[in-house]
């Protein structure tokens, strides 16, 4: 077992402490993650001591709030290793970030006949915005096929990617199986056709550091609530030279430079894309979560998660009918089926035993269709889970399978 002070980390998460007291186990971390106490404290402190509107007034509180808000942007810049703070746009979540790119970049720069390349493993949030755009603009969507192992079949890439491909949108890690996607190879291939690449990092950020400059993607998105931050906040990273030429999407306060009855001129990124009063508490709460992560040895945390995942898989192997879905290299997610039992029945029987897992298509219907599945059971780990959680999960699963 890697060196990682799990019991001390676990105490930082009030909900996990509480669930443990209640005898329950939370293994739905891929849906949303729990928050360390410092995030709650930051939110509290914000509302009790700093709350004011940002970027609009210059009184004391507003200055404090604006400083905290822009420092939070800097924290995200550092987390992603973006070149500048101006490349970090606050959104209400990963979904909104993808919709922003589709509506601003997509509607301005994609022409009828252009192609967008996705993969069959995408979350609906990285499919539907492109479908809506494609329908409006007369674009063609293509999908990199998924293999039965959950890996992408890159053999078809040379035909899927061509001069008409203007944009590639790909998950960093798949949410239903936890398979890491071959983002480096796809990005390199896309560059050859000068296609822009958006990486959906929703499932990656909770488990590893990200370096957008090393990846050299054009856009990177994630949600705060999946990386131990508050709900209602997310991030769009975009290369500045792209953000700069993108038209605003939503109109409102603070994204303008000048408004007259005849029209408006718009301010520079990132504020151009932040219409309306932002989710200030969310932004600084997310920064607090990222700062918390930076106090951990993330390498060790990731190893520890792998250790738990391996243990879980090993212990499940002799449960009658147990079938793992997905291949090697998975991070923190175990998606599985049990022969002869419906996933939902397993989910219910697990819940009755206090184990939270998720069941169904995990908002990835096209992938389920491609794999010929109607759904799976998904147990997803975070670094605050422990061996006891894993054992309780396995015992509960064994009971569900053998006693019902």
């Amino acid at each position, binding site marked *: 077992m890697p060196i990682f002070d799990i019991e001390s980390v676990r105490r930082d998460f009030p909900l996990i402490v509480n669930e443990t007291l209640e005898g329950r186990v939370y293994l739905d971390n891929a849906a949303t993650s729990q928050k360390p106490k410092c995030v709650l404290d930051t939110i509290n402190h914000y509302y009790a001591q700093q709350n004011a509107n940002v970027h609009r007034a210059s009184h004391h509180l507003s200055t404090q709030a604006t400083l905290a808000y822009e420092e939070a942007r800097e924290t995200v810049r550092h987390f992603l290793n973006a070149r500048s703070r101006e490349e970090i746009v606050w959104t209400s979540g990963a979904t909104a970030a993808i919709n922003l790119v589709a509506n601003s970049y997509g509607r301005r720069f994609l022409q009828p006949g252009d192609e967008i390349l996705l993969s069959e493993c995408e979350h609906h949030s990285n499919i539907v915005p492109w479908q809506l755009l494609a329908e409006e603009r007369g674009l063609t969507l293509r999908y990199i096929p998924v293999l039965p192992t959950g890996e992408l079949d890159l053999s078809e890439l040379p035909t899927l990617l061509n001069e008409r491909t203007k944009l590639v949108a790909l998950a960093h890690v798949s949410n239903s199986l936890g398979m890491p996607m071959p983002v480096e190879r796809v990005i390199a291939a896309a560059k050859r056709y000068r296609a822009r690449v958006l990486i959906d990092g929703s499932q990656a950020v909770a488990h590893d550091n990200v370096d957008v400059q090393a990846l050299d993607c054009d856009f990177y998105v994630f949600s705060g609530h999946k990386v131990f931050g508050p709900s209602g906040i997310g991030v769009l990273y975009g290369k500045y030279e792209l953000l700069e030429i993108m038209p605003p999407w939503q109109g409102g306060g603070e994204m303008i430079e000048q408004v007259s009855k005849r029209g408006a001129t718009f301010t520079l990124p990132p504020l151009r894309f932040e219409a309306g009063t932002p989710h200030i508490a969310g932004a600084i709460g997310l920064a607090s979560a990222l700062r918390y992560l930076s106090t951990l040895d993330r390498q060790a945390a990731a190893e520890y998660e792998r250790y738990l995942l391996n243990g879980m898989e090993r212990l499940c192997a002799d449960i009658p009918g147990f079938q793992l879905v997905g291949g090697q290299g998975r991070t923190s997610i175990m998606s599985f089926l049990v022969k002869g039992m*419906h*996933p*939902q*029945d397993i*989910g*219910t*029987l697990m*819940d*009755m035993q206090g184990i939270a897992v998720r*069941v*169904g*298509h995990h*908002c990835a219907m096209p992938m389920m269709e491609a794999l010929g599945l*109607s*759904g799976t059971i998904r147990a997803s780990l975070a670094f605050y889970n422990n061996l006891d959680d894993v054992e309780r999960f396995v015992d509960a699963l064994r009971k569900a399978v053998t*006693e*019902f």
Partner: protein
Amino acid sequence: MQQVITFPELVTIMEQHPISIASRDDVLGGVYAAQGWEGRYRELMRLGRDLPALPEELYEYSCPVKGCESEVRLLLGITPEGGFWCWAHSEARIISGLIALLLGQVNGLSAAQVCGLHLEAEMEELGLMRHLSPSRGNGLKAIINAIQSHACCLSQQA
């Protein structure tokens, strides 16, 4: 959107559902008698396994009730005499077992009677409320809503 079936050919099939007000005690007795959650859920799974899926003739008129976790097929019918019949089925057994609990309360009653029922009461009594959350996970609430709203609507027309 749900329709209520009135074609005699189909309604005749629907009236054959093994679970109705009449068969209720026989069929559901086991759930009431079961000990602990384990016993209760075993009974539910047994009930669910035995719940007939919609035969093809009915299936094509039925509507899907979608949840994230499983799909339920649902069909409502009314006999010329005013008997209210509901068929529903899910691949998941526990949901099907819960559906059986519902059908035992409504099948064979009049629409007006069904309209007056508090369908959730039995599930409350059996400690099964967790299955009635507004979460779209399973669709049970959508079935209850469909049954009740159609039954109430029909009884006003009558």
